[in-house]
């Protein structure tokens, strides 16, 4: 299979499945809390409805407000194209260098923060301030995690790290710490418990939601879709670090059996990931924002432990 075809397949799959992930998380969470829950494909309907609605743009906003949804969505799409989510060795896999990935994630967060500030409301400013704090202070932990993987696998690209993924965990068990830290980081980056509540309607408890309060219609659809993309990307990445790479497409393998295994595997990864996330969200509470320092320090120390143990053991 040509690497370009792999990139296209990955893009189509992940871009298509992203809203389903969000829907699955909500459905699992509802079921775990004893509710009926909306159907898992409701986000598709919601996005389609939002795209058809009329937008209401505030008079205090400027061109930056209009640019933000495009940039946030574009960074999401860029990540989907370069990361090893459904296939490894795709055409752009050399660009999945962890510093570039961290930089692109930060770029998306920065633009979302600017969008929150441009809305000229107190809630937007509050959400932006909190989100920017979390995004800044999670950077050292991100670097610690990926430095540990880079040192253990000998590759600086995430594509290379994943290729020595499932087996490397047994060779260097210290990477378990890095994985735990990656889970904590994923929760922080995706505005999930215990960092943020994605389902709250109380503005004082919002971080991510407060920044997108002013967006409506197609812009809101783009921003929501971008956050669904981010969640899908992180879930698939975490899954790919834990399971062997036979569940990923590879340029050299092309049999119908393998293809079916990969497709079913991807769907299973999303299912399992959403279930675990819903389980986590149901069992723990959201932390006070002013305790974020403890959470982020803990993530950093665990990631640092992973790095130091990889280096010295």
């Amino acid at each position: 299979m040509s690497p370009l075809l792999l990139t296209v397949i990955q893009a189509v799959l992940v871009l298509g499945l992203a809203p389903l992930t969000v829907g699955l998380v909500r459905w699992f969470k509802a079921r775990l809390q004893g509710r009926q829950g909306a159907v898992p494909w409701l986000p598709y309907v919601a996005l389609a409805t939002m795209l058809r609605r009329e937008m209401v743009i505030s008079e205090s906003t400027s061109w930056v407000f209009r640019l933000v949804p495009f940039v946030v969505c574009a960074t999401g799409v860029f990540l989907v194209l370069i990361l090893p989510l459904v296939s490894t060795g795709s055409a752009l896999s050399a660009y999945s260098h962890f510093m570039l990935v961290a930089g692109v994630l930060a770029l998306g967060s920065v633009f979302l923060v600017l969008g929150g500030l441009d809305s000229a409301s107190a809630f937007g400013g509050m959400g932006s301030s909190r989100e920017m704090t979390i995004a800044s202070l999670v950077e050292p932990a991100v670097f610690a995690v990926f430095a540990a993987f880079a040192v253990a696998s000998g590759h600086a690209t995430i594509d290379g790290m994943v290729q020595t993924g499932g087996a490397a965990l047994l060779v260097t068990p210290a990477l378990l710490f890095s994985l735990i830290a990656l889970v904590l980081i994923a929760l922080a980056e995706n505005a999930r418990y215990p960092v943020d509540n994605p389902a709250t309607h109380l503005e004082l408890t919002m971080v991510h939601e407060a920044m997108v309060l002013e967006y409506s219609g197609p812009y809101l659809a783009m921003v929501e879709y971008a956050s669904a993309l981010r969640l899908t990307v992180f879930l698939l990445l975490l899954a790919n670090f834990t399971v062997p790479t036979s569940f990923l497409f590879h340029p050299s393998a092309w049999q119908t059996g393998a293809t079916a295994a990969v497709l079913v595997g991807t769907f299973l990864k999303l299912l399992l990931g959403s279930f675990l996330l819903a389980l986590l969200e149901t069992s723990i509470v959201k932390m006070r924002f002013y305790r974020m320092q403890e959470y982020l320090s803990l993530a950093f120390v665990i990631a640092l432990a992973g790095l130091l143990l990889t280096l010295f053991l």
Partner: protein
Amino acid sequence: MIATLAVLEPLFAVVFLFASVLAMPTFRVKSLLRLYACSSIALALLIFSFAVRDASGHLYPLALGTLFVKGLVIPALLTNAIRRSGASERLQSSLRAAPSLFVTVAALLVTALLIQHLPFAASAASAHVLYLSIAVAFAGILMMVLRRDVFSQMVGFLFIENGIAAFSLATIVVIPVAIEVGIFSIVLLAVSMMALLSHKVQELYGTSDTASLRELTD
């Protein structure tokens, strides 16, 4: 079995250390005691794997004793004491959670640097276990120094005790059973006395914060 234990040995060692590091930013009594129990169980499993690996029979009762006394009885005792005394679940410290975590990590790094200069480093049976013991004892001392309330002092003391037990594992060849029994009973007695005293403190002062114990009363 020996092979799996040999593979799992680093895991036990790391859990032993990490539970004591994670105990530093924990400010809820139940979590603290759970972490202590976790650390003690890891120590017991470590002793057990050492016993299987070296085929030294005297370590089996030590492992069993650690598992039973430190992993089960003492946490149960303390939890019971706290519940009966009605003390607040939230512990006091002179340093907030995140800085105390960083201080502990710094202490671990300092220990790593200093361990090469210790006189008995060369003769220790296992350099890793030596490092672990000193690190855990150091973490226990830090907990006793940085925290203000009575229960943290107790748990800090218990961590120091764990560290010393690991140290004996690393350096001493044979411990007679009688001495082991003596050590365990001393620890048990000390903990029950401390539980009783903390009950009295709670009764008299209404708080478990040691800042109220600084001055003499009539």
